[in-house]
């Protein structure tokens, strides 16, 4: 594992971050625990390519600002999540934060796991899904869905470990070639019905198999748009037809320890969940400028 997929947790021995450490491990990070800020600094000196530091107030109530300054000097790219105790004694001063010496995120304690998960996902998503890919995924979904309504990305994108809770209707399309992985689109029956009415007005009866077919087709079209992004960078991808899953409450697991990139799109009451998974990817391939012009939406190539 590369050293930039390491997370340092600074917490008292009986601290509250045990569950978080497990989740980070599931996302594919190597998690290192230390009990004090001084031990943390020693670790950073030895391995400055850390991704993230999560510090609980139990370990940061003394010497917090000095630690933040030194940590950023030793590891400029490291992101820091800082727990704030109820009495705010562990919070860095606003002036330090303004000088750029503050943490990347402040979270009140006791930690709420969903809040912490969201912050961690936002800070670490770039390690797995470079910004260009993340934007391509969001743009593809919006482009396809916005044909029938003004969809928006709800909140930010986040990472999901390889054990996803399934909704009522899900479609998965595996792909391979220059990169491999899968795209999954899922939604509840209720939301699928709303979407069906928007995409296929007047087509009746609205049966479960028809709603499922629409979910599969949306998955197909979104993946096609994402693949176009890769095609522009001379990465060729082949994909097949959707696999449908009706198993609400079940868990979808796949091989590998990379997390998926997840986005939720909403339009009024309709909500579409999308998870994009890359099992392997050489991010250097995106460094070069666009190599190939591919067909755009609204364009016809005549032969």
């Amino acid at each position, binding site marked *: 594992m590369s050293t930039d997929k390491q997370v340092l947790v600074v917490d008292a021995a009986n601290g509250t971050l045990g569950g978080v450490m497990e989740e980070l491990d599931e996302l594919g990070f190597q998690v290192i625990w230390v009990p004090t800020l001084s031990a943390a600094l020693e670790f950073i000196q030895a391995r400055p390519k850390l991704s993230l530091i999560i510090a609980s107030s139990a370990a940061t109530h003394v010497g917090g600002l000095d630690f933040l300054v030194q940590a950023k000097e030793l590891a400029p790219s490291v992101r820091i999540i800082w727990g704030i105790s109820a009495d705010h004694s562990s919070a860095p001063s606003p002036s330090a934060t303004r000088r750029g010496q503050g943490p990347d995120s402040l979270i009140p304690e006791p930690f709420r796991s969903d809040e912490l998960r969201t912050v961690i996902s936002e800070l670490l998503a770039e390690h797995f899904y470079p910004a260009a890919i993340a934007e391509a995924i969001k743009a593809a979904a919006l482009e*396809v869905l916005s*044909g029938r309504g003004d969809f928006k990305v709800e909140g930010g994108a986040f990472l999901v470990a390889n054990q996803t809770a399934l909704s009522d209707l899900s479609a998965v399309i595996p792909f391979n070639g220059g990169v491999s992985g899968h795209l999954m689109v899922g939604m509840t029956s209720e939301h699928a019905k709303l979407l*069906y009415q928007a*995409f*296929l007005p*007047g*087509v009746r009866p609205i049966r479960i198999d*028809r709603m499922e*077919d*629409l979910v*599969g*087709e949306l998955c*197909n*079209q979104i*993946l*096609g*748009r994402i*693949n*176009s992004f890769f*095609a522009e960078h001379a990465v*060729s*991808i082949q*994909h*097949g*037809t959707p696999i449908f899953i009706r198993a609400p409450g079940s868990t979808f697991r796949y091989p590998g320890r990379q997390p998926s990139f997840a986005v939720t799109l909403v339009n009024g009451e309709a909500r579409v969940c999308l998870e994009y998974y890359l099992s392997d990817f050489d991010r250097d391939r995106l460094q070069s400028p666009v190599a*190939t012009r*591919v*067909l*755009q*939406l*609204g*364009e*016809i*190539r*005549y*032969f």
Partner: protein
Amino acid sequence: MSWCILIVDDSSSVRSQLRAPLEAKGVRVIEAENGSEGLWRARENNIDLVLADVHMPVMDGLRMIEELRKLREYATTPIFVLTSDAASSRVAEGKKAGANGWILKPVKHEMLWKAIEKVLVCKSVNVNLPSLEHATAQAPASHSK
């Protein structure tokens, strides 16, 4: 208008989305779920234009186009590939298979209709399909078959 269009797509949603606006224009629409059924429908009917997806079970769209082109009555029938696949290599395969055009999903109905009118009008006045881009300006306004 008495044009007959064959839609070959494994997604019932796509077929339904395409069918309604085409029927509103007076087009007779025939559907098929895969390439194999598409071939069968084409043999049974007098199709003026084919809209074919690529990724389908049983027989994919490009294979179906190759097979259609072997049939004398479909040697020059306009065929559009309608797919989510934009890869240049696939587009080249479509051309090699004998398609006349490649359109990306999701497609706007107005745009698709203009393309359909363009090729069918050109065909009706015996303008060669490969020179469509040039022919459009010269094509007459009449749409009747």
